[in-house]
């Protein structure tokens, strides 16, 4: 009896799906030849135009032209290289933006330079000297990143292996050093990099020379091998021993299955996102192509899950750095807020957002930070300092 009813139900359903329509009643769809062919980069640009025009308003044209023009690079100095890279880079006419902003006097750093997006920027109130000094002291002096000064469009040469066979510097977006600096790793701490590939931030983490143990993880195997190549070309082999460094290729969203929960002092989550600059230039494997629409739509969910994993992996009192390279609010602030509320409701983990304003005040003459950010910090691209976009937000686990 049950079987009979089941088959009847099934048949009804199938009939609904495969309803036969005679040819003469069928609507003939228009041939695709007349519909305009849009490349993925065009789609990305259209999407950005709509989304960010609302979000950024008057700032958007400046950001747009920055995104569409050549980006500026920073050279992250490899401390393990045998050559005197610093001398070489200084002879090129560029300067270490981290050191120069650290040595600048607190008041001067806050007042002297007026960034172009400053109209509504709230740096006017004096920042307490001790607080700034504290921030300054906590930034690792070992990380050196050289950039060409504002208005200089020269480029770095690709790094060559030195006499010991290590690359003397690594070229990356200078703004992506900021999350690492803001994470503020102390001597002897253990760090998890949940989405490590392709390795720029991981390398910057290792340059602090303070980490006791680093776990680098990324889901994609091919990108992981790229990370391994990067690390091999920059680090001496004794630093890559199993005690110091663990490289895995696991799904970061299921981190609780690994069992390393609540053990790390610091966690860095550089989540996959609609890489805004990249998706405007590169046609291959573009996230905005029609075939990856589903993936694009599920990105905020994936990001929330990753951040939740990170919150679980960090010890109580430890810190999580969430970073993306997109301008989209949906993938930045919303994800952070969503993850925090979910962590509280479902996992019983409470976390607070750490104020990064003293940190950004140090670097505001190198980068342009977006004004009016409620949660986290965003570096906006601008023609005179074409870094970013980078969003980062620091969370501290309370329980």
């Amino acid at each position, binding site marked *: 009896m049950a079987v009979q009813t089941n088959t009847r139900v099934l048949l009804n359903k199938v009939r609904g799906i495969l309803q036969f329509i005679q040819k003469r009643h069928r609507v003939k769809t228009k041939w695709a030849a007349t519909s305009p062919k849009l490349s993925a980069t065009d789609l990305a640009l259209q999407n950005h*135009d709509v989304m960010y025009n609302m979000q950024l308003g*008057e700032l958007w044209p400046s950001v*747009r032209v920055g995104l569409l*023009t050549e980006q500026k690079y920073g050279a992250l100095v490899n401390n393990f290289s045998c050559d005197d890279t610093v001398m070489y880079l200084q002879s090129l006419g560029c300067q270490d933006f981290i050191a120069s902003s650290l040595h600048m006097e607190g008041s001067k750093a806050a007042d002297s330079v007026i960034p172009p997006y400053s109209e509504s920027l709230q740096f006017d109130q004096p920042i307490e000297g001790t607080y700034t000094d504290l921030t300054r002291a906590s930034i690792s002096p070992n990380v050196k990143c050289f950039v060409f000064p504002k208005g200089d*469009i020269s480029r770095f040469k690709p790094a060559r292996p030195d006499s010991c066979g290590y690359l003397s510097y690594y070229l990356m977006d200078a703004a992506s050093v900021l999350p690492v600096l803001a994470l503020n790793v102390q001597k002897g701490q253990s760090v998890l990099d949940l989405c490590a590939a392709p390795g720029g931030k991981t390398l910057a983490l290792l340059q602090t020379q303070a980490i006791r143990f680093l776990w680098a993880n990324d889901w994609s195997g091919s990108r992981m091998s790229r990370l391994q190549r990067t690390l091999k070309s920059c680090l001496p082999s004794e630093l890559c021993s199993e005690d110091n460094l663990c490289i895995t290729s696991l799904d970061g969203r299921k981190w609780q299955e690994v069992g390393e929960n609540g053990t790390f002092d610091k966690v860095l989550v550089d989540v996959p996102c609609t890489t805004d600059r990249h998706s405007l230039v590169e046609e291959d494997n573009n996230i905005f192509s029609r075939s990856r629409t589903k993936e694009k739509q599920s990105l905020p969910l994936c990001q929330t899950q990753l951040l939740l994993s990170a919150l679980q992996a960090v010890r109580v009192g430890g810190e999580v750095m969430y970073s993306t390279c997109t301008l989209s609010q949906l993938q930045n602030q919303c994800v952070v807020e969503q993850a925090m509320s979910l962590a509280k409701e479902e996992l019983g983990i409470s976390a607070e957002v750490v104020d990064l304003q003293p940190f950004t005040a140090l670097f505001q003459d190198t980068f342009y930070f977006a004004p009016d950010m409620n949660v986290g910090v965003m570096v906006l691209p601008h*023609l005179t300092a074409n870094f970013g976009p980078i969003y980062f937000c620091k969370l501290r686990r309370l329980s």
Partner: protein
Amino acid sequence: MSRICGQQVVRWSLRLSPSLALKSAARAEQNARQFAFACRMLCSHAHESQTSRASAQQHGSELTLRILLDLGFTETQAEQVYEGVTRSLGKRSTTHDTSTITALLALGLNSSSIVKVFDKCPALYTEKGAVVQQRMQNLCKLGLVEGSIQRVISYRPQILTLPAKKVNAAVQYIRTKCLFTAQQMRDILRDSPEVMEEDLKHLELKFQYAYFRMGVKQAEMVKAKLFKVSMEELRCRHCFLERRGFYQTPDKKGQTLIVNPKLKDFLFTPEDVFLSQFAMATKEELDMFRKLIAREDEEKGKMLEYGDIEEDKEEDEGEEDLTDFRRGNMGHMGYERNKRKR
């Protein structure tokens, strides 16, 4: 002798066009001294021998300060012109003739603007008057009417040093390659006579950029005086607007999602107006952008060059007959290469 100059003025005026002659006569009337002089010359010097007159008519008369003064120049102007003539001609020829000056006078230019013309283009001193006269006629034939021809010549006298054939070829080239109407071509010639001296390939490139990349039609180009602006400036301003999201290339139906600013509005405005009204940006940004776009273009150009070389190589390897066939297009290069091979 200066009588002959006067004669030339009137005769060439008549030859140029009857209306022009009347006009120039009317102008001469205003310039009473000059006119009186011309008449005096025509009437009184009857005793001069026929032969010398004929020779003078061919070469114009010898240029002296006296004649210049008689032609209506002030003393300082005359000295200036005389000095210029002796400097540019040097000691190569001992006699300078006034035919060029008389030709310009016949056109209706007054003495001060003639001085300016010579200042702008000293090469004009060495041109023969008859040749200059012929080039002026050619310009008239191309559609420059009374008034605009004077303006063109006082704005860009270099056009008179170009052979008429070259000017005609350039006009023909622009009309066939860029499909301007005769009226538009006339306007181009009037507004930007410097196009005649430019490389025609570059002109075509600029046209194609405006037409295909920016979606601007010919009529608007003429209005915007496109050919007065350098390719770099055009590209910089257009790309700056485009990347800031204020300009879109229209599709094949001519539709855009936003309203594009008019070419004539943003191309010729001063930089500060362009920045505040159209680009909404700071000067810093535009300066940076100018540098970056120049480098982008340079690199693209290099890549294209490499591409060309590769193409040429392929041709060399495979199809010799083809290169022979293409010789016409490629000019002398293809021919020489073939020769060297043998």
